[in-house]
């Protein structure tokens, strides 16, 4: 199945859709933010493709996760880095995969702590369904239905490729 996912092609299509979305919303100077780590690689691609002058931001959502009491703190947390004000800006938020929607909730909470954005457009490469929160991406590269034992992971940054892994049960 992974052989069928051509990240390069998906990104091209997504880029076109995103341009259309920005036009439809009359957004001229969007601020681009990628969620670590996969989302940052994709943001890097979109940043070049959209020819944005302003550098893009990187978000580490470790401090905002809702599973702290079960998973604890990520020992490899790195500082978030937003090289622009978010107040009243139109933001493009990028992540590699959306499933439960919890990562996006955490990312939006974090963005709001920098300031109140005018709007957020959510872009994800893959949508695995199984949503637990009412959060939907605006631009999706491809939707996938995984088997219970399967996991998907974006590898990169060069080249970007999607790997499907068999999950080991209860280890």
């Amino acid at each position, binding site marked *: 199945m992974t052989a069928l996912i051509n990240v390069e092609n998906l990104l091209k299509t997504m880029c076109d859709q995103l341009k259309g979305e920005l036009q439809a919303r009359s957004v001229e100077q969007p601020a681009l933010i990628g969620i670590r780590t996969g989302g940052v690689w994709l943001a890097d691609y979109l940043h070049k493709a959209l020819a944005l002058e302003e550098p893009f931001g990187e978000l580490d959502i470790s401090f905002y996760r809702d599973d702290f009491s079960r998973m604890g703190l990520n*020992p490899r947390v790195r500082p978030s880095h937003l090289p622009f004000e978010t107040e009243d800006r139109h933001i493009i938020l990028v992540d590699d995969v959306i499933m439960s929607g919890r990562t996006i909730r955490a990312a939006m909470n974090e963005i709001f702590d920098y300031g109140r954005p005018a709007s957020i457009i959510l872009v994800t490469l893959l949508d695995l369904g199984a949503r637990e929160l009412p959060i939907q991406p605006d631009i999706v590269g491809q939707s996938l239905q995984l088997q219970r034992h399967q996991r998907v992971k974006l590898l990169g940054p060069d080249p970007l490729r999607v790997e499907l892994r068999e999950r080991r049960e209860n280890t």
Partner: protein
Amino acid sequence: MSTSPASDRHIQLNPFGQLRHFLSIDGLDRNLLTEILDTADSFIEVGERSIKKVPLLRGRTVVNLFFEASTRTRSTFELAAKRLSADVLNLDISTSATSKGESLSDTLLNLEAMASDMFVVRHAQSGAPHFIAQSVTPGVAIINAGDGRHAHPTQAMLDMLTIRQHKGRFEGLVVAIVGDILHSRVARSQVRALLTLGAEEVRIVGPNTLLPRDAETLGVKIHNDMRSGLRDADVVIMLRLQRERMEGALLPSEREFYRQYGLTTEKLAYARPDAIVMHPGPINRGVEIESAVADGPQSVILNQVTNGIAVRMAVMSMAMSGQLAERQAAAETQASK
């Protein structure tokens, strides 16, 4: 005799090797100290946002237990806990429970019963936080905010953060710690942290009355003289001198101390030209340090305050994380039975 007893490691870490109490630098390895510094770096970024708060400890209760008054240290811990979204309770124990004859253990058990998740403990007796973590409330994360002459690990880690920001590394660094080493919990923790993080040489400089017995077993080089002690140093740390040292016949006068060990522009010249000057504060100008040095280009004293909140946020969130992981594992073991 080992300088990093296994017992300290055992108390401070959960079975997965994660921090669950932060009592001393002893027994913590280089990776863990680096993790604290890295996590603190992320919290420094949080401090630059318009909303300087993250939800990590939301719904958790942090109790500041200061058996020894210190407004400054308590304030940074309070701010750190609040920026982690915790509920904070400040208890000045010296004036409340113990004066009514309630034992320390009873006071703590009452607080634990109020569903406290973390105690930040400052105490005049060395080992008080160890005692609390071991014998009284093992399920509450204990953060040592300074115990007797033993340890002040958060202060040491914020100093390490400052050094890393200015020097970018610890390898190859020569660090001189000057003043009252004997009574200094800060110095003990700094020495341990510097050596663990890979500093090349740590020196302690002072008169023999202010140096601890068998100090070389701490892993330091001992100097009585500022000229040799500061020679080619990359970092000079000045300790605060307490007035009561004069009364204990440890020193003749502040003036004589300043002449011999006070950091003046002239004495600073013994160190490397790019040496930084640190002081845990509050500074006695004209006793430990000349104003021109304290306010000079090599001084990084103010910087240390900003780092203090970030380091405390880091150890508080890591210790809470370690406690929760342990509770989670215990609950799973229970469930599988």
